[in-house]
């Protein structure tokens, strides 16, 4: 197919279609609306179905219904709309249904604005809806990476019967880059013999529910869920490290902010500062390993985020007091510049000491 120039939101949509997602239920909200529009145009071409729901709540519940039949299904939104989807997401987890939910994050709280932000980090990584749960969250940093992670999101969803969140900031959704859609090899995935498609197939009656009135029985279900989360934690951690080997200080950033941070690191390296980067790709499960491997020999970490300081809490947990953890963040949709991050780096490291 070669390289094509596309917008981030459209890349997610196309990657989903190529991953075999033929059903999409959505509701418009900036800065993710192109994804909805792309699906409206694209899905009929592959014999799939696009439906504009009356609300985000309805959309996620349509996803719930469709997911229960065993098909690959997706919905997408941005922060205020994502909040509305939390109800359905909790039910998807409770009923163990696979689906992919995209959150192209914008500035908040409340109506906020339509500028890029990462301030939904807590919401996506710490459960978000009611009940004890976690959801795998993938955070690509480039449009090419979206191609890969979107299809992986569907695989993870099917492998563990869980919703998976694909999270990007508004900039990732809106920017254009050349991307290539390569051949996909789908891994072997469990059969969906739990799907409700009518009993005529095999005479088996199937029920999809998250209700369990008996406390002990619900606890047993929760224990099983927790075991599943532990398996996900073991197998689905994704991250990238850059020049952490000799680093005195390590920056931590995800998504597009990681790219800006990378430029600040290049500049610092040119000035002789030994700085590296840990880029979490899975926000949950959070990559603890690269911290455990470096925390006893670095002087400190700096988490750079488009939030008032959310991921930094996970960094602190991973560092567990072994080194200093600093934070630099901008909020309200302000994107930190390379120069700001560089200056922060200088102030934390004490500048260049030869």
């Amino acid at each position, binding site marked *: 197919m070669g390289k094509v120039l596309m917008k981030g939101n459209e890349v997610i949509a196309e990657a989903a279609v190529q991953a075999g997602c033929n059903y999409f239920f959505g509701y418009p909200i900036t800065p993710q609306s192109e994804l909805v529009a792309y699906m409206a145009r694209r899905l009929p071409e592959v014999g799939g179905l696009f439906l504009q729901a009356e609300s985000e*709540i309805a959309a996620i519940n349509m996803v719930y219904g469709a997911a229960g*039949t065993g098909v690959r299904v997706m919905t997408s939104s941005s922060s205020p709309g994502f909040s509305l989807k939390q109800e359905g997401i909790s039910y998807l987890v409770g009923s163990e249904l696979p689906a992919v939910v995209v959150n192209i994050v914008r500035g908040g709280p409340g109506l906020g604005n339509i500028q890029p932000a990462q301030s939904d980090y807590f919401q996506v990584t710490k459960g978000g809806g009611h009940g004890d749960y976690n959801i795998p969250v993938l955070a690509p940093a480039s449009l090419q990476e979206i191609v890969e992670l979107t299809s992986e999101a569907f695989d993870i969803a099917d492998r563990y019967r869980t919703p998976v969140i694909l999270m990007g900031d508004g900039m990732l959704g809106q920017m254009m880059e050349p991307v290539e859609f390569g051949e996909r090899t789908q891994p072997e995935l469990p059969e969906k013999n739990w799907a409700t498609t*009518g*009993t005529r197939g095999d005479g088996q009656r199937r029920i999809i529910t998250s209700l369990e009135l008996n406390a002990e029985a619900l606890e047993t279900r929760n224990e099983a869920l927790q075991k599943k989360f532990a398996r996900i934690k073991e197998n689905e951690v994704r991250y990238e490290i850059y020049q952490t080997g000799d680093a005195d200080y390590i920056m931590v950033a995800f998504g597009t902010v990681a790219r800006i941070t990378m430029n600040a690191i290049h500049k610092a390296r040119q000035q002789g500062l030994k700085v590296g980067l840990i880029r979490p790709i899975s926000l949950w499960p959070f990559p603890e390993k690269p911290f455990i491997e470096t925390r006893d020999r670095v002087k400190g970490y700096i988490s750079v985020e488009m939030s008032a300081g959310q991921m930094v809490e996970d960094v602190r947990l991973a560092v567990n007091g072994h080194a200093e953890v600093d934070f630099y963040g901008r909020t309200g949709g302000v994107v930190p510049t390379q120069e700001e991050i560089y200056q922060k780096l200088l102030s934390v490291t004490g500048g260049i000491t030869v």
Partner: protein
Amino acid sequence: MTMKTVLKKTNGLTDNPTHYCPGCTHGVIHRLVGEVLEEMDILEDTIGVASVGCSVLSYEYFNCDMTQAAHGRAPAVATGVKRVLPDRFVFTYQGDGDLASIGISEVIHAAARGEKITVIFVNNAIYGMTGGQMAPTTLIGQKTATTPFGRDESIQGSPIKVCEMLATLDGTAYIERVSAHDVPHIQKAKRAIRKAFEAQKKGLGFSMVEILSTCPTNWGLDPFESLEWVKDNMIPAYPLGVYKNKEGGK
């Protein structure tokens, strides 16, 4: 002496005993739905959507594939199922709190889109499961846990007439209001349910049967008085009849 079977349990229901209170007509309505699914021979092609309310466990009772929806969202869940499986039968079973309060948007839009699903709407003019609070269908003057002095139109507004409202939408194919308070009406209710499923079978659009039902427990009446209360108070407020029949006729 040989014995003749005049009535037997429908295969449309499982053998699980239901949890409904004595005198509650939820059980009767379950049976009607089960019988219709069995008689139309569509049980094996049906996916039911249970809602939230006293019928939250209805997935234990209907003898077909079932999925459990969040409070009010059953029509959206049913939309998801039906859009993926257009040749299957999809129904929701919802109470009035579920459908007319938290889920009013979902049902209106499913109807407006002409979703080819059937909604079984059980109107007992109160929230049963949570202990008898006001529903959007609670009658003017009716006392509930949250209208202890009786529903006052100037404070709580007036009851929502769901059939009348949904019948105005072009996407609806069959809408009828029936009652489960005596045998002739129960038989009528069954015919209405069948018509609603037939509308779905023909792909005509959204179909709904509203069934006036009892809640002896929360009305504070015995089962017999409850049936009388439906007849004397609910039917005048919620007139029975066909509100929409796309094929024409009554």
